[in-house]
């Protein structure tokens, strides 16, 4: 069990993220454990993963296509997106697509090179849980949520962009 951040709180977490080794093999895990499986491996044999006692979730690599997951989304309690390097921003678009286009309602988790300076953006595009990188402090990462109190954009958290809210205010004043 490790600690993660979920909905702005540090919580312990029962999921085990499975990453393939160099030969492409996943580690052996007891059937009752809850596992997060690479999407590419899951989609090769989805039926096989249903036979486990524990829960199954998937994680997407930056070059995975979220559209391929769309019809299965409702069956997953958790979907994760991997950030192999924090400078690889593809996962932000994946987050928005899962939430906005494919209407995913469950837990959306960021994995990998994830820490304090990124959680604000990740939260905006729809992530609500964060597996903070080894060696980085979770309490520090919590501070990241409060970095900005306002934003200009239309985001999944706040679809009305600032320019619309500004003008509504003006109309109210008038």
């Amino acid at each position: 069990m490790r600690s993660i951040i979920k909905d702005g709180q540090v919580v312990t977490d029962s999921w085990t993220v499975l990453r393939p080794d160099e030969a492409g093999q996943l580690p052996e895990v007891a059937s009752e454990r809850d596992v997060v499986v690479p999407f590419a491996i899951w989609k090769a044999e989805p039926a096989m993963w249903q036979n486990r006692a524990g829960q199954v979730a998937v994680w997407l690599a930056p070059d995975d296509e979220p559209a391929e997951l769309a019809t299965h989304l409702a069956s997953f309690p958790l979907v994760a997106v991997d950030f192999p390097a924090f400078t690889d921003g593809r996962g932000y678009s994946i987050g928005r697509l899962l939430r906005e286009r494919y209407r995913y309602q469950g837990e959306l988790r960021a994995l990998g090179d994830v820490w304090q300076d990124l959680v604000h953006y990740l939260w905006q595009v729809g992530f609500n849980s964060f597996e903070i990188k080894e060696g980085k402090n979770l309490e520090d990462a919590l501070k990241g949520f409060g970095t900005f109190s306002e934003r200009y954009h239309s985001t999944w958290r706040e679809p009305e962009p600032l320019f619309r809210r500004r003008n509504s205010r003006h109309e109210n004043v008038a």
Partner: protein
Amino acid sequence: MYRYDEVDYRIVRERVEQFRDQTRRFLAGELSEDEFRPLRLMNGLYIQRHAPMLRIAIPYGHLASRQLRKLAHIARTYDKGYGHFTTRQNMQFNWPALERVPDILAELAEVEMHAIQTSGNCVRNTTTDAFAGVAADELIDPRPYCEIIRQWSTLHPEFAFLPRKFKIAVSGSVEDRAATLVHDVGLHVVRNADGEVGFKVIVGGGLGRTPMVGEVIREFLPTHHILTYLDAILRVYNRYGRRDNKYKARIKILVKALTPQGFAAKVEDEWLHLKDGPATLRDVDVAHYASFFNDPAYETRAANPEGFAAKLAEDRAFARWVEHNTRTHKQPGYRSVVLSLKKTGVPPGDITAEQMEAVADWSERFGFGEIRVAHEQNVILPDVKESDLYEVWQLARSQGFATPNVGLLTDIICCPGGDFCSLANARSIPVAEAIQRKFDDLDYLHDLGEIDCNFSGCMNACGHHHIGNIGILGVDKNGEEWYQITLGGSQGNHTAIGKVIGPSFAQADVPLAFEKIMNLYVEQRQDGERFIETVRRIGLEPFKERVYAKHH
């Protein structure tokens, strides 16, 4: 001009505090060099040859006098008393101390300025025509859209970590003065068959290692859709742009790989999901931003008043300056004055604190307290009465701003080069100066007429050498500085990438090569042809022959 409201202030102040904390954590060893680098770059901070370099955003090249005074103050307090205007209409300081950068940012925030996204793999400062709002050929004032794009691009959560930098330019006039064809995205105003005004969307232009003229992916985009359409373009780029090789990571490579039609189809498909969403601009939203750019209180005046016409007739030097360093204005009796930062012996684009304060003073005394920065690295007083021009000219001369060379060969666009930049292969400043000295005869310079001369110290092309009518590129050959010359490049509605004329030159031989090129032009030109027109007509071959001819 745009004024921050409480929310804009808050966002910029929170950004300053975020960066202060990031700097503290870096200095305390909590952030590694590899972690801090992208974070500091996104705030315009480079580690350079001598010291850090801080690049400050001047959104679409607009400055208020109080902002320019603040830049002068920063130059004096935190730097060596001068700054440098870049081709993205920004200002760079070359000598700030790392630990003091958060304080500089805090000072900037007081006057509604910042360094957000002036570097890094994110959306950079949006640029436009330096004469926006005052140009006579304007179809639409691009500045409200620039401000809307500035806000949209500022800390956009989806696009903070793109494959590579991303530059947007907007042009609202018939003649494109914003180089929209050599940007990652160019928006150039058009009127459709129904008389409606919108933007032509150009994608995948750019200079650098692989110079390309952009491709039109949409002939007409109604103005209220610009943000959703930009979201669609950026999302396609963010997801599919190459991340394995930084030299192939710009959007132009993706556009080429997918073909412009293929890229456009992907964008249109993405846009179907975003179109008419909450980021669609309503009339009331555009009106809100446009209200900041209403005309100042111009006086009703006659064009070419008597005193002005008399001075033009009697003072040849003044007339020459007016001809080259001022531009016609939409308001009769006014002109825009271009203060040349291309005086021989001064690095192009450099400006001292004293000069900044002088410009701020003049902008208030003779205008409405507004200043523009041109991507050609000159400073503009947009609204000067013709009756004040003689006095402005004298003041400009006293500060070294009145070299009558705007648009001429010695008005060289130039990057800081190897004297400052750690990326550069060669120095640019001394070579630019040698060219300026070679062509110091004003009569000859004026006879040569309009010539864009652009100079980059390396293939990153900050000096836009590819679109210079004559371009210079610094190259490294076994540790020595050499210079390649290109001809035939141009910006504007007929943007073209220049072609290399042949083997590169040693530093000392560049001015002579220029002289030979200009001599041939003078011999060959017909009926007042501009330099670029002669190059286009006769091609490169005669120039090659002349420049590389063996002496007998």
